[in-house]
């Protein structure tokens, strides 16, 4: 860990906020992608079975 001196809180806060936002965005995007894909497959299957 580098010596951040009196600015340790400032630098760490900036990195923490950014990482939380980026990871949150990635997580939400992946979860929604999986959910929508499953939804489409289910609807597709239903439409085909209904003829």
């Amino acid at each position, binding site marked *: 860990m580098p010596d951040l*001196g009196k600015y340790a809180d400032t630098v760490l806060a900036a990195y923490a906020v950014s990482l939380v936002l*980026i990871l949150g965005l990635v997580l939400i995007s992946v979860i929604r992608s999986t959910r929508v894909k499953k939804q489409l497959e289910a609807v597709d299957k239903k439409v085909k079975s209904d003829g």
Partner: protein
Amino acid sequence: MKEPRVTSLWTYANPKKFIETTDKLLPWVAMLALICLVTGLIWGFFFTPDDYRQGATVKIIYIHVPSALMAINAWLMMLVASLVWIVRRHHVSALAARAAAPVGLVMTLIALATGAIWGQPMWGTWWAWDPRLTSFLVLTLFYFGYIALWAAIENDDTAADLTSILCLVGSVFAVLSRYAVNFWNQGLHQGASLSLDEKENVADVFYHPLLVSIAGFVLLFIALVLLRTRTEIRARRTRALLARERMN
């Protein structure tokens, strides 16, 4: 003699073709994004010296500059996609613009948050009504408005039309965010960190990891937009199938 087959760019406006292509492309872009981001941030955080004036706070540059850059360029990408929708009515382009908006918003929020955190010890204030900061705040509001407008309108085509117009208007603030420092020579925010002018550009020791970090943010943006566009295409297809089912 057989003529060589030229694939038009518009082929990728076909949703099926887009999903097939991005199936192969997405893992590579995502992996490259991860490599560049981890390398750039670790290099910048652990292996660069403090700045003689700003001390250790200079390490915030590896997040602040790339996120601010992407916040503006995401909107410009949405502008191009919106223009393609207005002119050629390709659904994938409208959906790509929709997919990019939350990514651009998060980049804008990161730029604003890290800017405020950085500004407090350097300027003695979290916020100032400086031209660049203010135009960035307005851009954030445009992102929220754009996302809300898509969510508020049920008909996809009408939503794409209206959000495209909003995107055109918001582009003024995207450009202002970039050039506000040059237009109004006042305020707290300094000029561009990356410049062709050697005197203005940051020192090499900060510049190289910054470039890697920027590459990481650009690739992350591309990966997320590809992933989210695929999601939007599938969601649209689901809505269309359900609507057809209801009519039968």
